């Protein structure tokens, strides 16, 4: 039994209206406590619907969603959903569009206050979150609308981290950021995963990130889970990924080319570090 469990879940948008559309079908999905799960699939495959189900923003049309010790079915009332949200934090795509308070500190403290923290507690948590995402104390009293896009993104992420969630869902958290910003933010999430044991679910189109950070991958296609496994298992079959409109990390592509030329690896390399580690002894041996 994992921390998050979806049992035969279906989700339909606007059921019983002329505009009914099935978004998810017969989803079985398990996430273990402290794991780092990546959700991949091309646009419109149901990734966003799935993460909304996990946070109780929508109810399943049929089947059961279990998050920590909350169970959600089609007939659950909205009180149960509110309870569930305490455990889960979501960083939505372009989360800077959720900022609204007069100061950065107030905006970050907004979430904890909603979940019952006192003003003093919320402010303390907000300061901690600011430090986590790399915002110095002089940002605290600034208006979030005077900041740059990257800084706003950090404020928004700090606002989610301030909820102190056990489960953190990231929907393309680095979209539109520059290269160094992307690396910083992704490393922060990995650090939270390793040091504080926060369970992470990452929705992404960036296969390099999947290879580098995730330890479990689910592939969605047309509202159904078509494959799951470790990144190594998923990326080993490049042909299959291409057929499902997905790409593979550059490293694995290089490795595949080397295999085609006659090299062989005992274990398929995923990241640049792994590939170079395996190549160096081979190159030395050949000399």
């Amino acid at each position, binding site marked *: 039994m994992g921390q998050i469990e979806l049992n035969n879940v279906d989700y339909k948008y606007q059921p019983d209206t002329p505009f009914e559309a099935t978004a998810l079908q017969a989803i079985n999905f398990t996430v273990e406590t402290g794991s780092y799960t990546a959700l991949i699939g091309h646009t419109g495959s149901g990734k966003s619907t799935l993460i909304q189900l996990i946070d109780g923003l929508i109810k399943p049309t049929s089947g059961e969603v279990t998050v920590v010790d909350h169970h959600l079915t089609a007939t659950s009332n909205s009180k149960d959903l509110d309870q569930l*949200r305490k455990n889960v934090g979501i960083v939505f795509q372009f989360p800077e*569009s959720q900022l609204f308070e007069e100061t950065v500190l107030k905006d970050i403290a907004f979430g904890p206050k909603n979940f019952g923290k006192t003003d003093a507690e919320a402010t303390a948590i907000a300061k901690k979150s600011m430090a986590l995402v790399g915002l110095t104390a002089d940002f605290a009293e600034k208006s979030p*609308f005077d900041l740059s896009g990257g800084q706003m993104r950090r404020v928004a992420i700090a606002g989610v981290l301030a909820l102190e969630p056990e489960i953190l869902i990231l929907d393309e958290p680095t979209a539109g950021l520059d290269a160094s910003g992307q690396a910083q933010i992704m490393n922060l999430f990995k650090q939270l995963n390793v040091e504080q044991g926060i369970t992470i679910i990452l929705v992404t189109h960036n296969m390099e990130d999947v290879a580098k950070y995730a330890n479990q991958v689910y592939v969605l296609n047309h509202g159904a889970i078509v494959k799951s496994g470790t990144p190594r298992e998923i990326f080993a079959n490049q042909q299959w990924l291409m057929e499902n409109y997905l790409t593979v990390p550059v490293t694995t592509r290089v490795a595949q080319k080397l295999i085609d030329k006659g090299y062989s690896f005992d274990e398929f390399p995923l990241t640049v570090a792994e590939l170079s580690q395996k190549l160096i002894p081979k190159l030395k041996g050949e000399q």
Partner: protein
Amino acid sequence: MFTKVILGRYVPIDSVIHRLDPRSKLVLSLYFIVLVFFANNWQSYAFLAATTLATILLTKVQLKFFWEGIRPLIFIIILTVLLQIVFSAGGTVYWHWGIFSITSMGLVNGVYVFMRFFLIICMSTVLTLTTPPLLIADAVESLMKPLLKIKVPVYEIALMLSIALRFIPTLMDETQKIMNAQRARGVNFSSGSLIKRVKSIVPILIPLFISAFNRAEDLATAMESRGYRGGDHRSKFRILKWRGADTIACVGLAAITAGLFLLRLL
């Protein structure tokens, strides 16, 4: 939240009505609304109901859609009909209490009011279900052209209308997205006191305003960089074409008008 709203939605299928010129559809549906108020007896209402039903069938849109269009207004309809029944005097009195009374005239008036609502809603739903919003905007522009003579900025109004219509779905998506983000941060839109609920709108409204203004600025820059300099002296890509079917529709409605006035004499 907005998924239940069907008013103003377009259903893209192909039918005789879908192919009509949006100008004729707009004018004819407005004309029909006026016409409904000329009906004054059972026969004329039955006649108009039959023509409405015929039009609905011609659109090939499922009847379910029209029902969805009426449903949100059902409370207003019932309230008006009830007031009409209870407060109308005349004819045989069936029930009487203080200022309230149910009379034969009151019942008849109630049915008439109900029919008026029903027919008008159905016909306007025909217009919106069969015409894409942008074409309605084009039709409005075309029909307003004579106002250019009295210096009404018709082209600017038409552009505003097109942009506004284009951004309704975008802003709705945006609202839903922001609501989800704030709900994930613990805002509760559906419980608590009235004041608390009103306060919970702030975290939606402020981001929404900001994103709308940002979008407007970006759009304006993009339009200027593509050579937009104002309404006049621009060509039109979507050209409205008056076809035989439009003339037939107008003749048809003229015949219906004639029929209605004949029935009034009965």
